[in-house]
């Protein structure tokens, strides 16, 4: 799975899940409230029945008071009777501190219900019923949470499947492109080697001015092709070739690569300044650091304006390549390392240069920093 694909999946998941969780939460909350209300209504109904039972019993007691006044006791609930001034008459409830401001309330795992009665049999104006809380609400909460988790889990699975389904054509296209590049690279190997070898063999000193100009153009073009070819080789073979790390003198290699690209600089009348403030030694595979420098220089050449300067500054732990091109926006910089990303169609290339640079930089735990100002230029810093 590529990083862009992973990012897309995460973005869709976040968006989809946030909205779904919000919806599920609202539904769960409404359902919980509705069920709570129903449970409370049901509990109240039961307690009203309890109170009525107590009322009937005390009514009988009051009317037959010449017998013994034995207060009714029940298995399922406890009760108490209070007079009109809220003084206790008799109770089987342990907690006698009854809150008369509410008709129904919960306290210490018990539910209390206060039922007003008239006439006042045995003097009772209030019948208080005490029932053990049956934790129906807790059970309901657990049920709702479990259901919500299950729904969200199903939605996560569905959304991953959906995103993969949506991304499949894109992935197929990328695979096709990768396969095409692989095949092309393989086929280009022999002709490019032939062109480059033969160019090297031609003695340009013996050519007249007109032919030399044409020869230089061919040399420039073959250099560009060679650079693209090297990128493609890296892309195709990167995973199968092991790195051979040595201490590379960046100052020397930068000078070599600038020399290599000299003909390209001349073709756009670009002046290159190498400012060596210090020596930068880096333990890295020679071919890989060459790919990094070549790509940065070739990008600088591509995007800098004609007759401008490219400055290469080398410090103790970093080097910087600055052009005077059109610059990039922050949005473009954020996408620059994605493979096949190109911002200017007038320039050639596959849009793989910065992706290769990023891959190598990350492999060696180096830092890459891009500072760009629109219409002024771009500076790319590679640091340890």
């Amino acid at each position, binding site marked *: 799975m590529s990083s862009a694909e992973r990012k897309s999946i995460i973005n869709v998941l976040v968006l989809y899940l946030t909205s779904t969780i919000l919806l599920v939460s609202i539904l769960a909350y409404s359902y919980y409230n509705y069920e709570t209300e129903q449970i409370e209504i049901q509990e109240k109904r039961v307690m009203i029945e309890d109170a009525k039972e107590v009322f009937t019993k005390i009514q009988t007691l009051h009317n037959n008071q010449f017998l013994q*006044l034995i207060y009714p006791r029940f298995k399922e609930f406890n009760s108490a009777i209070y007079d009109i001034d809220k003084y206790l008459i008799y109770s089987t409830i342990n907690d006698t501190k009854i809150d008369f401001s509410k008709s129904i309330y919960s306290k210490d795992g018990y539910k209390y219900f206060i039922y007003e009665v008239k006439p006042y049999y045995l003097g009772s104006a209030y019948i208080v019923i005490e029932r053990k809380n049956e934790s129906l609400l807790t059970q309901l909460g657990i049920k709702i949470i479990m259901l919500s988790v299950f729904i969200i889990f199903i939605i996560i699975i569905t959304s991953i499947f959906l995103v993969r389904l949506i991304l499949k054509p894109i992935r197929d296209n990328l695979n096709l492109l990768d396969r095409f590049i692989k095949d092309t690279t393989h086929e280009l190997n022999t002709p490019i080697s032939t062109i480059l070898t033969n160019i090297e063999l031609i003695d340009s000193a013996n050519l007249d001015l007109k032919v030399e100009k044409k020869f230089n153009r061919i040399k420039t073009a073959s250099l560009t092709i060679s650079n693209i070819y090297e990128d493609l080789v890296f892309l195709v073979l990167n995973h199968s070739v092991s790195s051979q790390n040595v201490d590379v003198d960046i100052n020397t290699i930068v000078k070599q690569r600038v020399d290599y690209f000299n003909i390209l600089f001349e073709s756009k009348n670009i002046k290159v300044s190498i400012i060596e403030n210090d020596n930068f030694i880096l333990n890295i595979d020679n071919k890989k650091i060459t790919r990094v420098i070549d790509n940065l220089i070739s990008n600088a050449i591509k995007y800098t304006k004609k007759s401008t300067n490219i400055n290469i500054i080398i410090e103790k732990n970093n080097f910087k390549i600055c052009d005077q091109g059109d610059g990039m926006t922050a949005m473009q910089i954020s996408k620059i390392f994605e493979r096949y990303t190109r911002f200017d169609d007038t320039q050639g290339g596959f849009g793989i240069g910065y992706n290769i640079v990023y891959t190598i930089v990350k492999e060696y735990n180096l830092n890459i920093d891009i500072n760009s100002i629109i219409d002024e230029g771009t500076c790319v810093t590679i640091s340890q």
Partner: protein
Amino acid sequence: MCYNKPIKIVLITLIPVSIWANSFKKNCLNCHFQQMQLQIFMSKYTLKYSSQERIEKAIYDYIKNPSKETSVMPFGFLRRFGIKEPTTLDDIELKKAINGYYKQYNLKQFIK
């Protein structure tokens, strides 16, 4: 002496109770000598007024100013026994007697 102290407390507690009880016996039991009748009165007052304070006030108001309207007894009872004369007792004595009656006959104390 130390062992006299609990006896004093018991005496101090019991004296007012016995005074109220005496006041009730002295002023009421001459006419209301039937215990059942007194139980019925208490039962009717309890059914209508619920708390001690309200029952005592209702009895006080009735004894001070007896009438068919303020009586808790049914019509048949009133027709047979009639309405009593207003009391000649002073307020303090009357309240003591009512309190004594309540303490002796209230239903609350008999509930088990």
